[in-house]
């Protein structure tokens, strides 16, 4: 009865942890709506304009033409999209990041500029930048004079969106990691009342509940680090290397500790002394907590 009860509790805990870890990916699969109206410089709707939504992360791509009233509507899996609008006689327009959220509607209206207008505007730009030498004013060096090609000065909105998403996810990772320290510390403290001969069932339950919370929070924290976009061509340098290396200790530790804890719990509930592999629960937990704490400190303080 006791073991079955504990097994049920354990399974419920694992299911909760699984849900916490997978909830973000389940949310990501939910769909949202991207809609809007495409108009010309005079405000008139532009029909049959090509609208393309390309997932910045997922690679999901969908294209459609606007109706005669200039409107378009997409049903898309939630995520960030680069939306482009093209139509003959107009300069193409690109929205670098349109964030479609589950079960919500995002309105992105587009107003085209005519090609002629854009050409006039761009032709005026270099004239302002180049200082006339004939007026007696000194010639100003340009970026081209420094050997910097125009392509090197051009911004990359997609890369910026990737960096923004990476930073956002790592910020969540950092906050959740700090929050995880609280139940982790509490689990370690309650372990003193859960493992001895004179322990009560209630203190063991409290210890197990705190441990399950720690594990759930830990894997949610890990999710945000693992799923954060990687920036191509970046070589890992500095304290972050230690931070990442320590994950190979506390990661397996966070899987092993609750399994060993469950076996130890069952042995204690049967009135037995903790023995066999279950006796490693304490040492594994301490190594795991130590590695986790060091990982937090490795990116928080300068050594």
């Amino acid at each position, binding site marked *: 009865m006791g073991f079955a009860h504990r097994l049920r509790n354990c399974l419920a805990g694992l299911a909760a942890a699984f849900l916490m870890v997978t909830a973000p990916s389940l949310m990501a699969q939910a769909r949202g709506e991207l809609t809007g109206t495409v108009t010309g410089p005079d405000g008139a709707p532009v029909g049959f304009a090509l609208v393309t939504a390309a997932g910045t992360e997922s690679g999901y791509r969908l294209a459609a033409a606007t109706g005669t009233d200039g409107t378009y509507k997409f049903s898309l899996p939630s995520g960030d999209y680069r939306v482009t609008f093209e139509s003959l006689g107009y300069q193409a327009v690109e929205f670098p990041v349109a964030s479609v959220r589950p079960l919500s509607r995002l309105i992105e209206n587009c107003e085209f500029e005519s090609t002629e207008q854009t050409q006039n505007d761009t032709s005026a730009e270099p004239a302002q930048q180049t200082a006339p030498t004939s007026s007696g004013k000194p010639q100003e060096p340009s970026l081209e004079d420094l050997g*910097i090609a125009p392509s090197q000065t051009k911004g990359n909105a997609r890369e910026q969106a990737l960096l923004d998403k*990476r930073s956002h996810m790592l910020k969540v990772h950092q906050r959740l990691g700090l929050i995880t320290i609280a139940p982790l510390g509490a689990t370690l403290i309650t372990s003193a009342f859960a493992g001895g001969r004179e322990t009560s069932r209630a203190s063991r339950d409290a210890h197990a509940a705190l441990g399950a919370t720690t594990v759930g929070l830990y894997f949610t924290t890990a999710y945000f680090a693992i799923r954060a976009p990687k920036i191509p061509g970046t070589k890992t340098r500095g304290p972050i290397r230690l931070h990442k290396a320590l994950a190979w200790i506390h990661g397996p530790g966070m899987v092993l500790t609750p399994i060993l804890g469950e076996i130890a719990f069952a042995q204690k509930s049967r009135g037995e002394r903790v023995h066999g592999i279950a006796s490693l629960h304490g040492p594994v937990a301490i190594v795991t907590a130590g590695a986790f704490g060091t990982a937090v400190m490795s990116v928080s303080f300068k050594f």
Partner: protein
Amino acid sequence: MLRRLLISFCLLSLPALAAADSQWVLEQATLTYHVSHPLHQFDGVSHAAKGKGFCHDGECNFLIAVPVKSFDSGDSNRDLHMLQVTRGAQYPLVSVRTRLPESAVTSAAINLDLEVQFAGQTCEYKQISFQRVVQNGETRITGTIPAKLTDFKIDPPTLLTMPIKNDIPVRIDLTWHPM
């Protein structure tokens, strides 16, 4: 035929005659930003700056440009965060322009008005002091630009919920070579 050749030569050489009287080229550069956080003090260094100066009619114009990506603080994760908060992918270059009288180029101490373009913003710094030392025919200019995050509308990044200080002074060490 000879006349045509002479006229062609004169027409082709006009732009060259109208060009700058003298030029300066940036030989070596070290730009270092300094960041203060309650738990950290760190520097980001770049040696990738390029620069030129054109002097004409007693006045000189200088331009220095450096890729935002080239700053190295010794931690790739921190550098990527800095690149993100400074919108370095969208605005990949930092450029500094200044104009000064040609006579000031030979002074030991120079006060300059700087126009800095960074993170999609332009900020002017007035009368920034620089020291000048001449060694082996090359001119070394050193000084510090008292830049602030708010000058470029950059939200201060946080670590453990504590933001970095608004001041990000940029130390400049430039070696110029006359052409």
